[in-house]
């Protein structure tokens, strides 16, 4: 109905690479990842080989050197469309949220040390406790982090954790290796959705970080990370909504009830039209936000507005899709059931960071 204009020729070429990757490296393993606690290590290696993980990183550090978040958007959206919500989320967190923050705010030494494992496919970089931060105690030029972060996506396998902490009212950001001593990771076995993300509760038991582990201007970095989390959550949600809406439109075009196609009922048409309207609005604000992020003009308020709008579109699409699928919607082997659980997972992840309404209110001067 609405023709997106955000992607250009280069992105279309990149899309082909991504799709091949998804067909060959993701689709065959997705069920197993969902059952078994998340994407396996091989996935990151194969993604790295295709150059998918560091498109925005400097070329001299092994990245693609392309300062354009639309390649990441393409990667994330296509992965969502393939149904791998958890993986799409990890890619968004690593390529969309963490790497750009490191590239912008880390020193050259830090960046050199941190980027390599991520770009080379040891695992994703994920943000931890960037909403309410961990408690930290300053101790002789170092900080000691304690506390726990529930249900961290990729918590079990991340190569790099970008950790928010707070010490005496001042916020900071530490970047630590996923295998750092003092970390206890406990896999979330019974996650309803986003299972391919491989969530884990991470306990910080007096983890020591030194100045070299910490980014300068912690408050600024955290604000930037939260804004980008809102942005990328919105990208995921809009792509998820589109996937569900598309498959539901197909379903109602083939399923018969009372001797008629489900698509012929006014109730079906109006409910899906309402969902389509929400999605159109969401896609526009998401695309505009991605463009603004590229131009360096994205405000926290707009990113939060995009997150709210896209989440609403996603929730509506999933709810209406589920309802129109009737009994099939409730069977876990059906994609719509997985999509429902995955949407819940994304909402939950969002809520752990912030109430987007607070951010929007600040954006309109309240």
């Amino acid at each position: 109905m609405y023709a997106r204009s955000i992607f250009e020729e280069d992105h279309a070429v990149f899309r082909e690479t991504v799709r091949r990757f998804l067909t060959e490296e993701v689709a065959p393993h997705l069920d197993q990842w969902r059952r078994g606690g998340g994407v396996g290590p091989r996935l990151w290696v194969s993604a790295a080989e295709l150059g998918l993980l560091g498109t925005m990183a400097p070329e001299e550090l092994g990245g693609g050197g392309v300062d354009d978040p639309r390649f990441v958007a393409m990667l994330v959206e296509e992965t969502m469309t393939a149904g791998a919500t958890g993986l799409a989320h990890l890619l968004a967190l690593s390529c969309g949220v963490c790497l750009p923050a490191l590239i912008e705010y880390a020193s050259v030494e830090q960046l050199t040390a941190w980027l390599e494992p991520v770009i080379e496919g040891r695992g994703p970089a994920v943000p931890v406790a960037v909403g309410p931060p961990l408690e930290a105690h300053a101790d002789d030029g170092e900080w000691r982090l304690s506390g726990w972060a529930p249900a961290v996506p990729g918590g079990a396998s991340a190569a790099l954790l970008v950790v928010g902490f707070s010490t005496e009212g001042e916020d900071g950001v530490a970047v630590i290796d996923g295998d750092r001593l003092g970390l206890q990771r406990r896999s979330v076995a019974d996650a309803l959705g986003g299972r391919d993300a491989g969530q884990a509760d991470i306990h910080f038991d007096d983890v020591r970080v030194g100045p070299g582990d910490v980014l300068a201007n912690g408050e600024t970095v955290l604000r930037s990370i939260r804004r980008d989390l809102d942005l990328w959550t919105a990208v995921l949600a809009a792509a998820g909504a589109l996937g569900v809406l598309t498959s539901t439109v197909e379903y109602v075009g083939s399923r018969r009830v009372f001797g008629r196609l489900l698509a012929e009922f006014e109730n079906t048409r109006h409910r899906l039209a309402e969902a389509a309207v929400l999605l159109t609005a969401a896609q526009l604000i998401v695309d505009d936000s991605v463009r603004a992020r590229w131009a360096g003009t994205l405000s926290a308020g707009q990113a939060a507005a995009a997150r709210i709008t896209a989440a609403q579109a996603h929730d509506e699409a999933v709810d209406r899709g589920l309802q129109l699928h009737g009994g099939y919607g409730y069977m876990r082997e059906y994609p719509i059931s997985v999509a429902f659980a995955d949407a819940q997972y994304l909402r939950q992840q969002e809520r752990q960071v912030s109430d987007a309404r607070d951010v929007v209110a600040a954006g309109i001067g309240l």
Partner: protein
Amino acid sequence: MIFELTDEQQEIRALARKVARDWYAPKAREWDANRTNFPAAERKRIAELGLLALTLPEEYGGGGRPLIDALLVQEEFARANPLAAWPIFEASAGPSRVIDLFGTPEQKQRFLPPVAAGERLIAISISEPEAGSAATDVSTQARVDGDEVVINGAKRWCSGAGHADQYLVYVRFGQTPGGRGMGAVLVDKDTPGLSFGPQEELMGHRGVGSADMFFDDVRVPAENVIIQEGGFGKLFTAFSIERLGNSTMCLAIAQEALDRTAAYVQERRQFGKAVVDFQTVQDTLAKMVVDVEAARMLIWRAAVRAGRGAPKTLDASVAKVYANEMVKRVTDMAIQLHGGYGYAAEYEIERMHRDAIGWAIAGGTPAIQRTRIASEFLGRRFDQRS
């Protein structure tokens, strides 16, 4: 009008609450995780306490009480552990009631006492791959052959399939299309020719069991025909009772989600104050209260007016559509107010939300209910086929 429970109702409710909290609440999470079937021994225990089949006549071992009393008990069990409420639902508001209301004295004598004693569970089997919302499209055939009935066809989404001992199967006698050609037959689980598909992995209602059912020349005695061909109205009367059972499950889940959320937001602190001190939290909690209370009143009205019979279609559909959408809203708000823990399995809110979703799909979706409501309110039939 009187809006208070009688002393007797309060006593039954208190007993139900105690049993449910003491015995079943602690098992809810484990049973959900393992998709455990409700143990038959537990069903007997509930029967022995006189809480299983309150609405069945006393002469058959039931409580001889009005529908509302059974729903009060069902609510308490479902709050603690929905799986434990299931046999109460089936015995008091489900297929057993169809036999109670429409069966012959001989049928009641044969089929109801084992249910009331907790020895046997009857499930209802209506939907088919091509007949979900359009229940009158049922194509499972029943052919009378001497003093037997021969059944052929397939059923889908039968709650309890594979687990229940008997099935009240909605069938089509002969070739008459629509509701007028339909009836219902009781079939034992182990009847030759009846087989079950693999257990479905549903999002919720775990432990209840759900599977396809295949009927391949299944022969049952003719005296197992509970509703003869042409008993259209009876079949749909049964729906009305079941809708209040469904609605009560929603009410219970929502009330429990509300109470646990109320406790959580008072215990939990954020940014140096109790979570409940945030105005939006108060606002959301109040929305939950209002929503739960409205559903409760609509369900209770429908049930009380039904007395020991069946509720009016309008009352039941109004209650169901409200309760179905209410419980989705309320559990969603509960998840929101639980912040980072809303989807942690240990808080059980996510289980409540998953179960909630299922109730709006079972027993006629809200969209279907609304068509019925408009139809009943206006006294006018709408043809879905044109």
